[in-house]
Every structure is written in structure tokens, then in C-alpha cells.
């Protein structure tokens, strides 16, 4: 038996409905992010005090905020930053976590023990506090946010991959591969990894939602994107005090963030179904 994973066997015709819907929503947001300048004629950072707090209408479809910025333009442009936070927020952790988990789980022994101690030290700090501390040291901005997430969030993936690798290293096709004299690297990459990565792929979708939430929270603390850059979390925070008088400032970015989260969650669910049934 070849060490091909379930991914290779996934076939489109068996795609679960949740994956189709979730994927479509997520894809739609990516399109919106790319086409934002085409979709709206307004500049998301242009202030116009004379146009402040205008309710949704013919000119400003989603109304304007407290300093007269177009809420629609800000909501659309914000997709760029929020999607970037979702994507880059998980891409670093999954790469680092997978490498560490794979090595630890496959090689075992002292290397495993050492890597797991590092992991324990990392998780012994409260997650949010550690991210804030790292961002504070590196300075505010998206780049330091990504670095800090990578340094903190790899543990989830390392654990997932390690537990899979621990099991897989004893199964027949891996033993057979060893018997044939394949090197460790080859076995890890081509035989263990494709099978061990499955739970991570499902998890990554949920994690992306958490990355957006975390990014927005950091924005609230001044450690995320800086004003006047549009970002959903920051927009909701801005609109909070206007909820009873100018609901549109917070509601539209709120809907946007819910939609993206829904899309990602459905995708995760669909992926889980797809990969489980196939394997």
C-alpha cells in the first residue's frame, strides 16, 4: 500500500453541501477583497465631517460613520485586512507546528521530549497575554501580529500532527517503507504527513476565524492595524457608542465578520466530512 493520504482520494462529486456553501462564501469574500476599489466609488479613509452620521441611503448605501466616511467602502476594503489576518494568521502556525509535530511524533525519544517541553512552556502562558507581549516588543502592526501568532499558535498544530504521527509510525505501510530502506525524511514527507495533516486542515478553518477575532481584539488595544485603516473589529468598536443612534456603523461590519466566519466554519465542517468519509 502506498502512503497516499485521503486528500488524494477526495473527489469532487462527493463534496458535502457545507463545503460547497462555505467555500462559495469564503471565495466570494476573496473576490470582494480584490475587487473592493471597483465595487465602490468611495475612498474608505476619506473623511467628510459634513456627511457625518448619514443613514443608509441612495448615495451612501451603508451610511456614513461619525466622521463622514462611507461605511460600505470601509466594510469592503476591510475584507482585505481581515482576510489577510485570517490567512497569514494561520499559515505561519500551521507550517511551524506541522514540522515540529511531525519530527516529534515520528522520531520520538529525546527529540520528542525536548520539543514537547518547549510546547509546554509555550502553552503555560495565557495565549492572549503572550501574543500581546510579543506584539508589544515587536511594535504594533500586522507584521508583528503574524510573527507573534506563529510563535504562539504553532502548538495546536504540533499537537495534532504529533498525535497522528505517533500512531502512523507503527502502521504497516510505514514499516514496509522502512523495510524498503526509505530515508526518514522521505517517509515523513510522503507517507506520514499526507495522513497526519488531515485534522490540521479541518482545524485551520476554525483557527482562521479565531485569528480574525484576535486581530480585531488587538486592534482594540492598539496593537493591530492602525487608524484610519478599515478593519471590521475596529469598525465595530467605533460604532459601539452609536448603536442606538446610528446602528449602521457597527451592524454592517458585524454582518460581514459573521458571514466570513460562517463561510470558514462551513468549509471546516465540509472538509471534515469529506476527509472522514473518504478515509
Amino acid at each position, binding site marked *: 500500500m502506498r502512503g497516499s493520504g485521503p486528500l488524494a482520494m477526495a473527489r469532487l462529486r462527493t463534496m458535502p453541501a457545507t463545503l460547497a456553501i462555505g467555500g462559495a462564501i469564503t471565495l466570494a469574500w476573496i473576490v470582494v477583497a480584490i475587487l473592493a476599489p471597483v465595487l465602490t466609488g468611495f475612498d474608505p479613509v476619506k473623511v467628510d*465631517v459634513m456627511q457625518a452620521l448619514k443613514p443608509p441611503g441612495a448615495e451612501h448605501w451603508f451610511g456614513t460613520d461619525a466622521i463622514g466616511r462611507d461605511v460600505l467602502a470601509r466594510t469592503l476594503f476591510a475584507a482585505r485586512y481581515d482576510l489577510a489576518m485570517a490567512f497569514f494568521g494561520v499559515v505561519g502556525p500551521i507550517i511551524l507546528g506541522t514540522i515540529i509535530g511531525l519530527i516529534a511524533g515520528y522520531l520520538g525519544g529525546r527529540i520528542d521530549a525536548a520539543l514537547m517541553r518547549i510546547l509546554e512552556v509555550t502553552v503555560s502562558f495565557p495565549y492572549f497575554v503572550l501574543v500581546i507581549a510579543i506584539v508589544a516588543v515587536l511594535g504594533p502592526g500586522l507584521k508583528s501580529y503574524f510573527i507573534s501568532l506563529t510563535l504562539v499558535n504553532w502548538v495546536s498544530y504540533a499537537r495534532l500532527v504529533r498525535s497522528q504521527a505517533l500512531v502512523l509510525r507503527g502502521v504497516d505501510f510505514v514499516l514496509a517503507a522502512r523495510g524498503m530502506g526509505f530515508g526518514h525524511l522521505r517517509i515523513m514527507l510522503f507517507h506520514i504527513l499526507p495522513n497526519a495533516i488531515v485534522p490540521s486542515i479541518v482545524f485551520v478553518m476554525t483557527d482562521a476565524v479565531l485569528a480574525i477575532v484576535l486581530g480585531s481584539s488587538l486592534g482594540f*488595544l492598539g496593537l493591530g492595524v492602525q487608524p484610519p485603516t478599515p478593519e471590521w473589529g475596529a469598525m465595530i468598536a467605533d460604532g459601539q457608542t452609536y448603536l442606538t*443612534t446610528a446602528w449602521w456603523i457597527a451592524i454592517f461590519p458585524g454582518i460581514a465578520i459573521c458571514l466570513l466566519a460562517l463561510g470558514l466554519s462551513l468549509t471546516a465542517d465540509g472538509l471534515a466530512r469529506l476527509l472522514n468519509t473518504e478515509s
Partner: protein
Amino acid sequence: MDRRVFLKSAALAGFSIATLPATLLRANADGSKILRMGYGSEVLTLDPIKTTYGADILVQGMMYARLLHANPDRTEVGPGLAESWDIADDGKTYTFHLREAKFSDGSPITAEDVAFSWNRMRFQKDSAYAAPFQPLTKIEAKDARTVVMTLDRKFTPFLTLTEIWNTGIVPKAAVEKMGDDAFAKAPVTSGPFKFVELKPGDRVVLGRNEHYYREGEPKIDGVEFRYVPDDNTRVSMLQAGELDVCLAVPAPRMAELKAAGFRADPEPSSTTYDMLINHSAEPFNDLKFCQAVSYGIDRTAINAAVTLGLGTPASSIMSPTLDYFDKSLPVIARDVEKAKALLAESGKTGASFELIQNAGSADEEKAAVLIQAQLAEVGITVNIAKIDSTQAWTRLADGEYQAEMNWWYNETRDPDNALRWCVWGAGDNKSYYTRYNNEMVNKLIDEASGEADNAKRAELYAQIQKIVVDEVAQVALYHPTWLNAYAPSVKGLILNVGLQFSSIGGASLD
């Protein structure tokens, strides 16, 4: 005078979600009248000499009696613990004659206690706000009822300062017995209310002081001063009847509360909202550049967007509520052409600067983004850096900043301590950390504080205001009002310009 209370509260709002009190019922199950106030920052100490923090000042104002007592809106000060006072002809010796009064534990308030409290405030090393009392050199108890204070120069604002929170009278015996730290957590008081309980991070509970010297006061049985960091939660608590007073209401919610029958009218405040600039660093080390920035900013637009018209755009660095405010000064108008010309003259064309904004403050963010957009039209690039308020404060104090959104208020209506706080280069805080230092201004401030004649003082203060606006000591933006909302049952209570409930003794709760 730095009472960064509102800022801090806003900054904390991000991660501390207000916990609702366990009991949603009124605290007056037994029929007692407890006034419940909600504020956005936490009470940190109950020792009047150890703080310059808004929440502390508000609470301590209700706990400690002072030598003089202000009327509700603090337009004048009259007899307090001192029934009368004499000022020597040379203006340097003040003699206060005390009335018979008692502390909350029933022990008498003597001249000895007054001298002790004042000496602590003036000379103890960790006294937080001794600065305005520089001319005061000696405080002594002449006999059981007489306190004599000696100044080294004529100092007209002195009497108005005998009412501010940190001159609150504390019992010598209790402080010495308990030590400062223990006293700060469970003090014996001299004002309308006695200390009942302090729950850090939650509330301070005060009870009626049966021994308070003002007959028939206080009318209510106690005060609960609750820490509710999130602005909107605080408003909801007022609407739900869990609070009687909501302090620091966000401007957009005032109209709604008023319509719902709450007393929600803006109250005059001595606050100036400003952009502090670092005169010792690039690019603000050039007068022409500072002026270019000042002319490039549209104060009227900022005031309209941030306060929704409940404040006034700045014409002076001093608030219009202060005495000797120069009414003849026009609102500092925007003039883009002039700003561009000044920028060219300064040789800093294409300059940029970092504008620090306290994270979590929606008002500051709005103002900062507007400044950014307005100065872009002049050709100056502003990079906004939203940072946590503690770090922002440290950088300000250390001079490691270019510009920072900020605000300050004054305790008294007399402008002396305001000016010493914000433009007096000879002070410890280097003109509120702007490093602005004009010998002429320093001299005029000293001269004005020694002048007894009102007309002459007015003239001197007008002169100072003109210079500091011309030289952009700080970029004053607008003067907001205190935005508080009171339940209809609360009667006779207002917050005055100096962030004090001076009328709390006479306030009632139906």
C-alpha cells in the same frame, strides 16, 4: 491636573467587561437612600495626597472636608472647616480659625490635624500634587483652633487652593497609628461621608458621616461609587435602574437619555482637549512648523464631530470656564494657504510626524484621523500610532514622542495652576511635557499670581494667552463639557468644573 480618567476607562474597556453586580436589587432594601454612581475608571487610593487620578479625586471629594468649601458650581469658595480667616497686610501670612468639628470616628478636628494634613500634602516626599503650593513654606498650629500658614511671596490664588481634594483634612492620630498604606485602604474621614468598604476593581462604599460639621448634611445615607469601565454598559445600567448617576456618558447617547427622562445636560468643565507637541524634537522644534500645523487644523469640524456640538472649539489654551479667560480671542481658524506658506518657510516641506493616540479612546481616534486628513491637505503626513495608555503616558513624560492626543483639566477656576501645569516651562512637568519654555511667559505667570488687582491680573493673563496661542505651546482643539446623566430621583447634584461634587451634602434622592 492630569486626570486621564476618561482615557484610561476607555482603554480598559477593551478587555474588562463590566461585571454586573450580584444583586440587581437596590441596595436600599432597608429603606436607606444610597446614591449609586458609575464611573469608567477605578478608585486606586483613598489617601488624598497620593493621587492625581480622576476616580480618586471624585471619591475623596466626598470623604474629606477642606478648610474652605466651594459652592456647587465652584464659582466661589466660602467657610469650610475654617469659619474665618485673616490675611496679613503683606499677603504672606494666612491665619485660619477653625470651627468645632469632628472626624467620622467622633474625635475632634483640631488645628494639629489640619497642620498635619497640610504638612503631609506640602512636604511629604510622595505627595502627588504639591506643585501648586510652591510659595507655601510653613504650616503650624498656633493653638487648638488656629492654623497659621506662611508664604514666601504674595500669592493671590492661594485661598482657592485651600479647597482642592488633596488639602482634605485627615486625622493625625489615625494616620500615624495605621501608617499611610493601611489608612489609604480604610480611612477615617472628615467630610460628609465615612468610609464603609473598598472592593478593588469593583466599588467604594461610603456611609453617612454622623459627625459631619454641616448641620443636616448629608441628606442621603450613603454613596456607592462603582467601577464600570465600559461606557455603554454604564449607560445600560443607568437605564435599567442599577445606577442613579452615570458619569462620562458618550456624546452620541446624551440625547437618547434626555429623551428617556434622565437629567442629561452637558455640565461646564475646565477641560481642554489638545494635541501635545514636543517642542524639543523634530519637527516641532521649529515655530513656523508648529504654526503651520495649528493653522492647518479645523477645530470647528473636530469639535462638531467629536462632541456633537456639546463642546466649544478652542480659542485659547485655557478653558472658557476659567477666570480671566480672554473672551476677545477668536476661535483659532483654519487657513490652509497660510499653513502651506508657513510650512514652506519652515523648510520642512514634506515633513511627517507620529501622532500617538491612546488605544481604546474613540474620541481621540476621531480627532486624530481628522487631524491626519486636514494636515494632509497642507502637505504634512501624520502617522497615527494607537498605543496603550500606560505606554503613551510614559513616552509623553520621557519626551519620546512627537505629538500626542491628550486632555487636562483644572481644579480651580483661578487659572494659576492651569497655566503652571500646561505652559510654565520652569515647572517639573516641563509645560505638560511639551518642553515649551518661554522665559517671558514664566515671568508673567509669576507676576500674575502675585497681583491682587483683578483688572491687572486679567491683563496679564490675556497677554499670556495670546503668546501661548501664537507660539502654539500646545495645539488646543476644543473644550468639552462633562457629560453625565442623573436619574430623575437625584436632586441637587451637579459635577463642577473641577471634577467635584461640591453639592453632595445637600443632594437628595427621592
